[in-house]
């Protein structure tokens, strides 16, 4: 593609990488030019992370070659990668939260005077690094006193350091709100204009179209193709990623003309709220109905879920369950009534990483039964097997620690955990966050099926498109307040976005 005089910044040629039983990368070739933002897309398990780890020296490729500026390079460990100017910022920020900003920035390479750290020059160096990313914060403040977005910027500032030529951003936007994303993109454009080659991994297609010049798609370890962004339509992109036509997947609006006049009211919230968390709101949930919670990050979506389930105790308002007033202030009370809750933060509030898939799956039901009444092992296995099949959970065996599964499969186990308790109301907070397109679609389908079976669902999501696809009614949140309720035929991306933006 490039002429001889101006070889590409990096070309990856025919790279293979296998793990026992899995071919993670199969003859993958990519080219990254200076001043290019190259989006790397694919489902979970497509090989994106493996490719990044090969580039950063965490894995050593089995065969193939890496060429920088026309010269072959060998990357055996992360120091090699550093030496060649390859820098990475991971989704999970790997900075030290309890240290100051300046300490984090200069941790690996502290300026010394006579063998002692010179904090003055460390700070001036840190200031220089922050200036590069356009950040003006107190260097002596503790890192975790800043928002995730700022921490992400600090991570990028550290990654850029000196001599960075290739910047790999692995899901950098997963925990950012739209303003913060805009800020990050501004920075990416600036770096691009300075001649940096950027590899950008994300699940958000909007962002891909916003920022990238080139798109490469991986599927099952193979390189499907590399495309100019402006020449690739969205549906083509998704079909490349999924290997099937999108028409069957998307744009199917739910049958939102649900008559809930004669349906039983499952849960109703009357002026439920909590100081500094959520302004009091009313919300009714009916049998067989999916209610969406839309809004920006921090708008109060998550808080509605938490207060409804009793994960946080509301300090005002009343709840009634099936028409009678009850007190639901703790998860235990909520579960006893027939509620279930998949929290947003799957890693810290959902899975129990050390325990096996089987144990994770039966825990909620076992908890409801009480410790003195254990489920017989044969029954456990039958139920776990059934749900592994039904939800298409990919695990080699049910005794595998759940922490070792991919995000999408973890989420399915958490869903299964609650489904076996046969709840009347299922609360899902961001059920599709951080999982690949295939599992994403499967989970949306599960939501629809459950609703068809008469379950009531409350689903918070930052993806308006997703809410439109399944919700019968949408509560729109802004600034910790419910600002609108849209239902029936009036549910559309446009109406929801208008309500948020008003």
């Amino acid at each position, binding site marked *: 593609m490039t002429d001889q005089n101006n070889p590409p910044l990096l070309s990856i040629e025919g790279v293979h990488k296998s793990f026992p039983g899995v071919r993670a990368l199969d003859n993958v070739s990519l080219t990254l030019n200076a001043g290019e933002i190259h989006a790397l897309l694919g489902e979970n398990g497509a090989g994106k992370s493996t490719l990044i780890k090969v580039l950063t020296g965490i894995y050593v490729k089995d065969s193939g070659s890496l060429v920088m500026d026309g010269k072959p390079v060998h990357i055996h460990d992360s120091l090699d990668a550093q030496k060649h100017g390859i820098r990475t910022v991971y989704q999970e920020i790997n900075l030290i939260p309890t240290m100051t900003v300046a300490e984090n920035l200069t941790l690996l390479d502290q300026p010394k005077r006579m063998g002692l750290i010179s904090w003055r020059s460390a700070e001036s160096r840190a200031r220089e690094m922050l200036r590069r990313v356009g950040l003006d914060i107190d260097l002596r403040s503790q890192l975790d006193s800043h928002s995730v977005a700022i921490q992400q910027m600090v991570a990028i500032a550290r990654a850029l350091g000196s001599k960075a030529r290739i910047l790999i951003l692995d899901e950098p936007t997963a925990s950012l709100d739209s303003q913060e994303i805009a800020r990050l993109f501004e920075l990416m454009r600036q770096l691009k204009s300075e001649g940096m080659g950027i590899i950008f991994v994300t699940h958000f297609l909007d962002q891909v179209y916003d920022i990238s010049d080139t798109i490469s798609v991986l599927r099952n370890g193979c390189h499907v193709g590399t495309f100019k962004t402006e020449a690739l339509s969205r549906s083509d992109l998704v079909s490349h990623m999924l290997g099937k036509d999108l028409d069957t997947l998307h744009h199917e609006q739910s049958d939102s003309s649900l008559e809930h006049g004669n349906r039983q009211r499952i849960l109703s919230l009357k002026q439920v709220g909590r100081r500094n968390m959520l302004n009091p709101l009313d919300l009714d949930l009916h049998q067989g109905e999916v209610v969406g919670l839309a809004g920006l990050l921090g708008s109060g979506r998550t808080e509605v879920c938490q207060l409804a389930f009793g*994960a946080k105790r509301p300090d005002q308002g009343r709840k009634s369950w099936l028409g009678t007033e009850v007190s639901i202030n703790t998860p235990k009370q909520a579960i006893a009534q027939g509620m279930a809750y998949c929290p947003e933060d799957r890693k810290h*509030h959902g899975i129990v*990483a050390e325990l096996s898939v089987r144990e994770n799956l039966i825990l909620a039901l076992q*908890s409801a039964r009480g410790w003195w009444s254990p489920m017989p092992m044969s029954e456990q296995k039958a139920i776990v097997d059934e749900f592994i099949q039904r939800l298409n959970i990919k695990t080699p065996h049910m005794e595998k620690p759940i922490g070792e599964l991919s995000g999408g499969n973890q989420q399915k186990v958490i869903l299964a955990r609650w489904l076996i308790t046969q709840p009347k109301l299922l609360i899902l907070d961001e059920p599709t966050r951080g999982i690949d397109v295939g599992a994403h679609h499967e989970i949306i389908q599960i939501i629809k099926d459950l609703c068809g079976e008469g379950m009531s669902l409350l689903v918070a999501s930052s993806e308006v498109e997703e809410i439109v696809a399944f919700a019968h009614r949408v509560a729109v949140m802004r600034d910790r307040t419910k600002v609108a309720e849209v239902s029936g035929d009036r549910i559309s991306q446009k109406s929801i976005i208008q309500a948020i933006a008003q």
Partner: protein
Amino acid sequence: MQFVSKPRPDAKTLAPVISLFVLIMGTSLVTPGFLDISIVDGHIYGSLVDIVHRATPMLLVAVGMAIVIGTKGIDLSVGSIIAISGAVTAVLTVNTEWLPFVVMGCALLAGMACGLWNGLLVTVFGIQPIVATLILMVAGRGIAQMITGGQIVTFHSEFFNAIGNGFFAGLPLRVVLAIVIVVATALVLRKTALGLFFESVGANAESSRLMGIDSRMLILIAYVFSGFCSAMAGIILAADIRGADANNAGLWLELDAILAVVIAGASLSGGRIYLGLTVIGALIIQTLTTAILTSGLPAQYNLIVKASIVLLVLLIQSSRTRDFVKSRLMLARRSSHVE
């Protein structure tokens, strides 16, 4: 099509068992007659029996410790609880006409009350377990000294003699007692869902809470149980020497107990309880102590040798060492092929 199969038992669970076996075999080479077992008057005797006999107090403490560590806690106060329960046993035996059963019940209750205190500090006041139990570790010996009036209180009681050094069905009674407690604990953990709940709370307390698991109550139970086990150990130790020594009873035992749990493969960050392997771990430590004493090694080397062998066992345990050795072996094999 799903491939659902059983995982293989991993090397990690085998390591402590193999370590114990190797240790016993190694000692028998150094110390002749180490493996001999004889039956005198229908009672079983021998070095191995002696090891199990001596190991019982620490083993009991380790069992309680395994559960506390499983909930992501730690109990440093076990030595002090041993002193307190020993003191209670001695003072009540000397000063009252109460039935030995009642005295023993009081000592056990005292230990459980100590555990309750620890548990409350951890759950209600949210103090980190290492700090919370450190308080009783320090204060507990003081309490024991107050109970005994600062003296070593000696006592005579047929009942407690039997617990300390008696036999039941040919086996040392205290060993039988320990077996009963361990088996009962294992049954309660694995035949009810209690074990799963302890592990779930230890691995992720917030997830567990959101599933309706009462993590506070479980943590409280864990510390009370640890208190019970320590009290039992204290009773056995006091019965053994027919007296209560508030200053020295169970001194440093918490370290051996924690070590036993770690040798069993548990992580101090909680989430897994290996009861059987903890027993093996306790036996490893006691075998080591006994072996060094009987080997005739100059006394000043004891601690160094003990520490070195424990380190060796932990290295065998570590998956990183195993990977290293495996890759070295593979390299060696490959190069020998080339030649």
